[in-house]
């Protein structure tokens, strides 16, 4: 708990430092990292703690992003309407997809969530009214009122940081509650959980829906941040990316999603924006092939460090 508070203090001071340096680009970049941290944290609930390997989580991020975007595009610019609508939409999507998928298990479950998410991708892709495959550009970010202008990068940063804090604290409380116990027990030994009288399917579904709802919030924030949304947000490669973040950061650790998002996006930024001379000498176009590095790193992590960064950290503290 103390470490978390310390991290938040640092994060609170960050934009002030950047403003002083007149560098708002990094504040905006940090906001993006925080938004992905929220998305990855929601996946951590379902995947890390719940053990449900959902390969379609991007669908919920996308549902939230699109609903929030459509609201703004249609003139409903208030975040107090748009964001709850996004959350409700993705919760509904999670309920529908989860209700069918959670009746299966193992390999079937993974493939079905993947297939449903891809279905959502194709659906959104064919919505010509909202941009189709070209996506939808928004005239502005959502409006919060209360004297807070989300168009201001620093303000936006604090708002998303606040939401991340709530998400993490919420996850913390949920995992300590009765519900959290049940979720972990189901992951540990589903058959026995049912044998002591727990209606397992119901708990898994609720967990799935909660994760979907939080993912929807992340999606709404993402849409406002870039003032743009396109079907790629729902593509299964995005789902894979979110999974990488969770594994990288540490499955089942509170900060796993956040750490993973920070590391992955940070690496991506460094590789594309900072030339590495010796690499450039060997392969001049290397930033275009950044995925090769990502793939190799990921493969290495899966094969050699399955508990991710948080796992390594907690082992060093002797935890």
């Amino acid at each position, binding site marked *: 708990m103390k470490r978390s508070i310390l991290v938040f203090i640092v994060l609170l001071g960050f934009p002030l430092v950047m403003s002083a340096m007149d560098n708002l680009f990094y504040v905006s970049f940090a906001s993006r990292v925080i938004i992905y941290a929220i998305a990855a944290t929601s996946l951590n609930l379902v995947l890390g703690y719940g053990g449900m390997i959902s390969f379609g989580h991007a669908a919920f991020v996308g549902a939230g992003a699109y609903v929030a975007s459509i609201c703004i595009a249609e003139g409903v610019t208030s975040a107090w309407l748009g964001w709850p609508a996004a959350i409700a939409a993705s919760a509904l999507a999670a309920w529908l997809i989860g209700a069918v998928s959670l009746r299966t298990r193992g390999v079937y479950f993974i493939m079905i969530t993947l297939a449903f998410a891809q279905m959502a991708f194709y659906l959104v892709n064919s919505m010509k009214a909202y941009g189709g495959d070209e996506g939808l550009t928004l005239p502005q970010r959502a409006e919060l009122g209360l004297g807070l202008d989300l168009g201001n990068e620093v303000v936006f940063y604090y708002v998303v940081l606040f939401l991340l804090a709530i998400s993490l604290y919420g996850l913390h409380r949920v995992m300590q509650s*009765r519900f959290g116990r049940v979720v972990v027990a189901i992951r540990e030994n589903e058959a026995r959980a049912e*044998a002591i009288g727990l209606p397992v399917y119901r708990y898994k579904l609720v967990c799935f829906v909660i994760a979907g709802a939080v993912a929807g919030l992340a999606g709404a924030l993402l849409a406002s941040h870039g003032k743009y949304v396109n079907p790629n947000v729902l593509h299964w490669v995005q789902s894979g990316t979110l999974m990488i973040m969770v594994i990288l950061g540490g499955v089942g650790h509170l900060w796993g999603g956040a750490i993973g998002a920070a590391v992955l996006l940070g690496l991506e930024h460094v590789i594309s924006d900072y030339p590495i001379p010796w690499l450039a000498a060997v392969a001049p176009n290397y930033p275009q092939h950044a995925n090769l590095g990502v793939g190799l790193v990921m493969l290495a992590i899966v094969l050699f460090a399955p508990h991710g960064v948080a796992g390594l950290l907690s082992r060093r503290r002797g935890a």
Partner: protein
Amino acid sequence: MLELRRVSKRFVGVVATDDVTLEVKSGEVHALIGPNGAGKTTLISQISGTLPSDRGEIRFDGRDITHARPYERVKLGLARSYQITSIFKRFTVLDNLALAVQARSGSSFSFWRPVSRETALTDEARSIAGEVGLHEKQNALAATLAHGEQRALEVGLALATRPKLVLLDEPLAGMGPEEAQRMIALIDRIRSHVTVLLVEHDMDAVFRLANRISVLVNGRLIAGGAPETIKADEQVRKAYLGDEVAA
């Protein structure tokens, strides 16, 4: 209390349980014996609901539970322990038992209040731990327990749901003589408030504990009745007991 009528289950090419009709009376310890592969665990799975029956009817406490889901049967008071230990390895003994108590008491759709504050759950878990002889080890991780202790936890989990009838599937499996005595004593203690259907290979335990015995061979019930009758039964001797058992 528990009635099975013509319960059957077949897998591809193999008949696991065949037309089994038996009755477990309230308050008794009813033993189910038979050679390996006779279908005893299959029958237990059918009773607990994890394996759907192809044919037949199962009635518990007057109700037809043939199509009830496993967790519904538990709610009605029918619990089960497993032949191959199936506990929550990464929970402590107390947490294992507290979970079962939690499952029984109120809804687990509670998202905010920390479970650790619910002293009622921990208190009851502690008393069950005492009942099964795990008081010393209540804070140990289940994975670190010795085999016999894990089997005790296995039974404890079933008991924590406060069942009316408990299905014990080979609780003495893999136990040394001392551990076995403790388990037998445990079953003797619980029989005053729980009806028991006991599947066992350990004949010493069976004859000490059982009010009645049913014998399952190749999926069919070939004999049933008081222990002396079973001991003397020719068919049972040939199929299972052999002639070493003293008359």
